[in-house]
């Protein structure tokens, strides 16, 4: 069973995304409401998450900053990170892609296909 960590400051979005992945793919979901908690959750998660789905605009530490910190942590650097963002403009997309994240997904996502999208981006065949 896959384990996914969702990091988003909006509680409603965390809940909907978690429910979506649990109900459509049967994955196990862990959530965190900010970048710092996200890093802690990722480190403490046993087993480690298979992927991290993270918001971009978060107070204090945004998605890109959190991502860079994760990359410096040898325990976390290997976990694929997908950014989930409401910033859909071309410039933002290029900026995110340049960070080196595994993929950028857009809000509002379709709750019935979110898991499929993650599988497709990460090349998962399950």
């Amino acid at each position: 069973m896959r384990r996914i960590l969702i990091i988003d400051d909006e509680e409603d979005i965390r809940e909907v995304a978690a429910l979506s992945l649990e109900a459509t793919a049967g994955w196990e979901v862990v959530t965190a409401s900010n970048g710092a908690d996200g890093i802690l959750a990722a480190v403490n998660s046993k087993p480690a998450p298979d992927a991290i789905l993270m918001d971009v605009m978060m107070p204090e530490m945004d998605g890109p900053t959190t991502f860079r910190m994760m990359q410096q942590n040898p325990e976390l650097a290997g976990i694929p990170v997908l950014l989930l963002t409401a910033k859909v403009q071309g410039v933002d997309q290029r900026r995110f892609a340049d960070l080196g994240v595994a993929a950028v997904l857009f809000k509002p996502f379709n709750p019935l296909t979110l898991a499929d999208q993650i599988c497709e981006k990460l090349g998962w065949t399950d």
Partner: protein
Amino acid sequence: MSFSLTIFSVLFLTCICLLGVLALRLARKVRQQQRDLGGLSESLQRSRENAEEQKNRLAERSDLDRAKDEFISTVSHELRTPLTSIRGALGLLSSGLLGNVNTRSQNLLRIASTNTERLIRLINDILDLERMESGRSPVNLRRCSLYDLAREAVEMMSALAEAAQIRLELNSYAAHDSIYFDADPDRILQVVTNLLSNAIKFSPEGSTVSVEIDANADALSLKVIDRGRGIPADKLECIFDRFQQVESTDSSKKGGTGLGLAICRSIIQQHGGLIWAQPNENWAQPNHGNSGTTFCVQFMRSVRIGDSVLPSVATPVVERGEGLILVCDDDPGIRTVVCEQLQRRGYDVIEAGSGEEVIALAHEQAMRDAPAPTISAILLDHYLPGLSGWETLRQLKSSATTAAIPVVILSVSSPSERPLLVGEAQGWVQKPYNESLLLAELGRVLKSKAGTVKDGQHNLRSSHLTV
């Protein structure tokens, strides 16, 4: 002795007088020169101030543009965030994944879901249109086959067509190697799928929607022909305006955003092409009841010779300009900005502040000796004090000397807000205008003046530009 003394004193006095006069003249001249110099420095100062003012005005404009962009980007983000929760919750509930709900609740969930999707499309379309019109969505030109793009669009829409019981067909009347052109494939695909989606929505069950491709030495064309209810003649133009639909209830019934055709038009104009709607020609089944509509898209060839299958380096849509453009607007601020933009692109410009001035300058320039440049095109404001834009246009067109100069109207109103008179203006740019579209429209008009556009009627009907 006294005689010679007298003569000497007379001569001496004369000399003194002459010297005095000379000194006076010299002094006057110096004063004059001082005055002239003062005037010169004053006018230098004035022109420096003007340049400063122009620079400030341009800076103000780009500040405003930036503020607007930021605002739209923020609004879009802020709307998307709550929509994410709504879409997610409704989608999961109505899917039945979380357990069954009764039929009435299911119906309400479906209504909420459908309208959420519509709201998301609307936000996406607004953002899309805004990006294009602010020039922040440049087209990425590549060598593409119009036929391949049309086939891809037909494939993409086949599920929708099947669900509506509509047959899709694709015909090409063009030679295989004549359908290559420089375009942004994603954008063209967006246009064709949009036209197909409209055609499917408005076609009766069991009918056929056809896509036709054709090409000649000057242009490539694509037509989407439906057998729907048809579009009244007075709506053929304005359906390309934002939120304009034939029936006011169409957007809620058909699920459209009212922006699809406006987006199509922006995309086609970014490609220097034309798009228009017309009633079907020679409809073979008169008893069918519905005459249907043909949406036509035309792309001018940027490279006319040596069009081959081989990919070539894409040429920019707005090429470097050449020629003398007469810019007329009674607002000196707009004049300054327009002239600045044209000059940056390589055009020479002359300015006029009134219709009377336009007529005079156009004649004057035409009467000059051969080496003097003739006016290549006139950008004419619609609302002018004194001689109105229309009257100016009429006078230009009725004089043999100036009739051949193409005129692009620069107006706050949409071209659909006035009756079309054949033979008038060759182009239309709506204010507030966008630089790249203004340049594209001017380029198109200059190109068609050079004799590439053959279909005069369609050229006129669709040559307007709303930005």
